[in-house]
């Protein structure tokens, strides 16, 4: 009964989404306020209905209702509760339902937090949001119904793919979807601005908090996914340039660019058309990512099942929305009032350079991801474009960007003084050079790691130089308190980027070895010694595992014990490596088991990874910076109209 309620709620949600797409739009054209105001309650109701459907599917998974195809194929009664709940999105149908849930929650959020917004803008925005909801709800109901039943329910399910049974996966997809789909809000705003032909600084003030929120979730989602890959795939890699990973990186790069150019539009009323374009681009790339992952064009952990019908349906949605938005852009962008031009040496100019580098980086990722698909479709040749391609192309773009980040932060709006900015950054440059020399003396090679580490230190120091110099002018505490939160946000986010870069640079100094270990015989890994003390077996809830107890010593003293294991999941007859990881400061020792031989030796990967945690901590710090900016009174969602009249303290003079 609960399951049928969920299915019914989903159908009702589709009907409401269609109403949300049509009525407010018509109202906005007829200037009929009552029609336009239909949008808000409908958007909230649509969200509640999708939430009901989602709750029903979760219920079916929790109680192991094996009359549902979805539950049979992805659940098992012995599976721990957390994976019963996260298993809802560990499959194609459920993850699409989560996608739509997030999409409708975005609509509800606009509806609830847009009191200050003009009626026409709100109506058009929610109409576009409703249209997207309708398209994806139709996709679910027609091709991927999660509520499909079987006539003859089996006693047991087939269990969730073991590599997805992990706490990291419980959080990664929801975060990523909040980011991906969060950009739909910005997309809808852009489409509404184009339809209405009105765009001003207030528009940018409405859009920026949503962009920021989506960007924060996307940053955290990508970091979480990368950490998950690092510790579950059992060989210590954290980024594979897999098309599915690229699918999340593309909207992140576009979103980061958007975040910065929306600032220009808000402060200086310039770059309007470009801001609109990036708003469309960020979500279009999210849609492209959804298509790549969900259509079965690619094979990876993320592609649950391939069904050509689904692929064609998603492709149609993709073409309709991206094509529609770009066509709208082509016809209407020229009608938008253009902003003024500005001096190249200024904060605006620096942000243009930022946008240029970020969009070029984004374009190269798009090319690297789509080129193999295009080539195969055209010539039948199969190629793979991997890390060497992306390293060659992105490093020469990323390193100059890092070099310019603190300089841009130092330039004032309207007219900057490059020489003065460089002089103010003396301490940061000096710190970078000292770090470069220190890392060079300590490790000697590789050159790229040393240069990157030097740049990373320069970036972290440079990010806070402005704030530090303000604090130094007299009453430090009062001055720091007087700074807008968004200034702190910028500095912290930039510093986070620096920390991630330092973590990435340090990958060049780790030790990665595959060794045959004899129990009781110590094995060197970096500055540590690892000894196998015991090898044994035990049973988990839905798996059996063989594990090794390894002692980690330094100078004869035992620091930690780790238990890397090989797990075997009965339901799917599948093995999975469970890495043993010790965190020592910011570095980690990583052990993963291989095969055991008859003479008692055990193959194992033993890695020593200095500073590796910084890669992900940096991302968390970036998100924290974003959060601070979001908390800034002037940027808070819904206060755009009040902020317009309030005094505008400049971030840097």
């Amino acid at each position: 009964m609960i399951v049928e309620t969920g299915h019914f709620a989903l159908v009702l949600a589709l009907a409401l989404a269609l109403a949300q797409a049509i009525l407010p739009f018509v109202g906005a054209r007829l200037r009929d306020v009552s029609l336009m105001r239909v949008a808000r309650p409908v958007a909230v109701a649509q969200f509640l209905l999708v939430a009901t459907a989602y709750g029903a599917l979760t219920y079916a998974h929790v109680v192991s209702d094996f009359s549902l195809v979805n539950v049979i194929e992805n659940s098992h009664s012995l599976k721990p509760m957390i994976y019963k709940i996260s298993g809802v999105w560990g499959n194609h149908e459920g993850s699409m339902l989560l996608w739509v849930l997030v999409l409708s929650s975005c609509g509800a959020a606009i509806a609830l937090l847009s009191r200050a917004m003009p009626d026409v803008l709100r109506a058009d925005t929610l109409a576009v949001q409703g249209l997207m909801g309708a398209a994806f709800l139709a996709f679910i109901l027609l091709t991927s119904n999660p509520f499909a039943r079987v006539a003859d329910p089996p006693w047991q399910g087939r269990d969730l793919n073991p590599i997805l049974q992990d706490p990291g996966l419980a959080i990664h997809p929801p975060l990523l979807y909040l980011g991906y789909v969060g950009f739909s809000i910005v997309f809808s705003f852009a489409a509404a601005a184009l339809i209405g032909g009105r765009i001003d600084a207030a528009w940018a003030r409405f859009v920026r908090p949503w962009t920021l929120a989506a960007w924060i979730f996307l940053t955290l989602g990508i970091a979480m996914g990368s950490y998950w890959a690092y510790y579950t795939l059992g060989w210590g890699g954290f980024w594979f340039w897999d098309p599915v990973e690229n699918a999340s990186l593309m909207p992140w790069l576009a979103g980061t660019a958007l975040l910065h150019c929306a600032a220009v539009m808000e402060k200086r009323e310039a770059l309007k058309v470009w801001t609109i374009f990036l708003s469309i681009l960020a979500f279009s790339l999210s849609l492209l990512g959804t298509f790549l992952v969900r259509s079965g064009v690619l094979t990876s952990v993320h592609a649950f099942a391939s069904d050509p019908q689904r692929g064609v349906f998603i492709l149609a949605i993709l073409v309709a929305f991206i094509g529609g938005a770009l066509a709208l852009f082509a016809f209407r962008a020229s009608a938008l009032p253009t902003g003024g031009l500005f001096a190249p040496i200024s904060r605006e100019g620096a942000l243009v350079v930022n946008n240029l580098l970020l969009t070029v980086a984004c374009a190269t990722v798009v090319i690297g991801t789509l080129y193999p698909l295009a080539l195969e479709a055209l010539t039948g040749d199969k190629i793979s474009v991997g890390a060497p391609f992306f390293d060659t192309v992105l490093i020469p773009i990323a390193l100059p960007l890092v070099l310019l980040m603190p300089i841009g932060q130092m330039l004032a709006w309207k007219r900057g003084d490059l020489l003065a900015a460089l002089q103010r950054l003396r301490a940061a440059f000096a710190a970078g050079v000292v770090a470069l020399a220190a890392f060079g003396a300590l490790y000697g090679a590789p050159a790229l790691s040393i240069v990157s580490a030097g740049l990373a230190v320069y970036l972290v120091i440079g990010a806070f130089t402005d704030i530090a110099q303000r604090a130094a002018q007299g009453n430090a505490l009062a001055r720091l308190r007087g700074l807008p939160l968004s200034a702190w946000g910028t500095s912290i986010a930039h510093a986070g980027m620096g920390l991630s870069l330092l973590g990435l640079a340090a990958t060049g100094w780790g030790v990665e070895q595959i060794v045959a270990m004899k129990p009781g015989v110590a094995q060197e890994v970096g500055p540590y010694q690892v000894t196998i003390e015991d090898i044994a077996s035990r049973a988990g809830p839905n798996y059996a595992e063989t594990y090794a107890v390894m002692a980690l010593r330094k100078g004869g003293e035992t620091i930690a014990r780790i238990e890397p294991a090989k797990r075997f999941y009965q339901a799917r007859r599948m093995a999975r490596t469970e890495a043993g990881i010790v965190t020592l400061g910011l570095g980690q020792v990583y052990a993963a088991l291989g095969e055991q031989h008859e003479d008692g030796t055990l193959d194992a990967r033993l890695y020593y990874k200095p500073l590796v945690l910084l890669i992900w901590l940096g991302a968390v710090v970036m998100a924290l910076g974003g959060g601070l900016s979001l908390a800034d009174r002037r940027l808070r969602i819904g206060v755009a109209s009040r902020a317009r009249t309030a005094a505008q303290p400049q971030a840097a003079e």
Partner: protein
Amino acid sequence: MTRKGKRLALISGALAVLAIAVGLVLFALRDNIVFFYSPAELAQKRVAPGTRLRIGGLVKEGSVQRGDDRNVAFTVTDRTADLSVTYKGLLPDLFREGQGVVVDGTLGADGAFRADSVLAKHDERYMPREVADSLKKQGVWQGEGTKK
């Protein structure tokens, strides 16, 4: 700077960055892409020894030989042609005879393939798409969901 000058500076700057990026992409695409073949396709093409390749197929039953020091030799087959592969390292959890596999590495002058990475399928239902495609091409595909 005049309005025209500003616009010119902006556009020429953008073009310069773009030109550099295009150059990098072309350079990287020429040097860093790896072709994917099945053993049968490899037999047809004349590939110079030392070229980096990805080969996909099934691990031939009974072909896996484990040597000392984590050296492994096995045969990758698409039921039409075979290719012997040597590898030193840890095999993935899902590496099994009769199952799909993708190997990355270089072709030696003796016609044997030296792999530096071995990827196995992710789960029981999964087969690398390239392998499925080439098996279909060779006519030995046994339909969706066929299990060994």
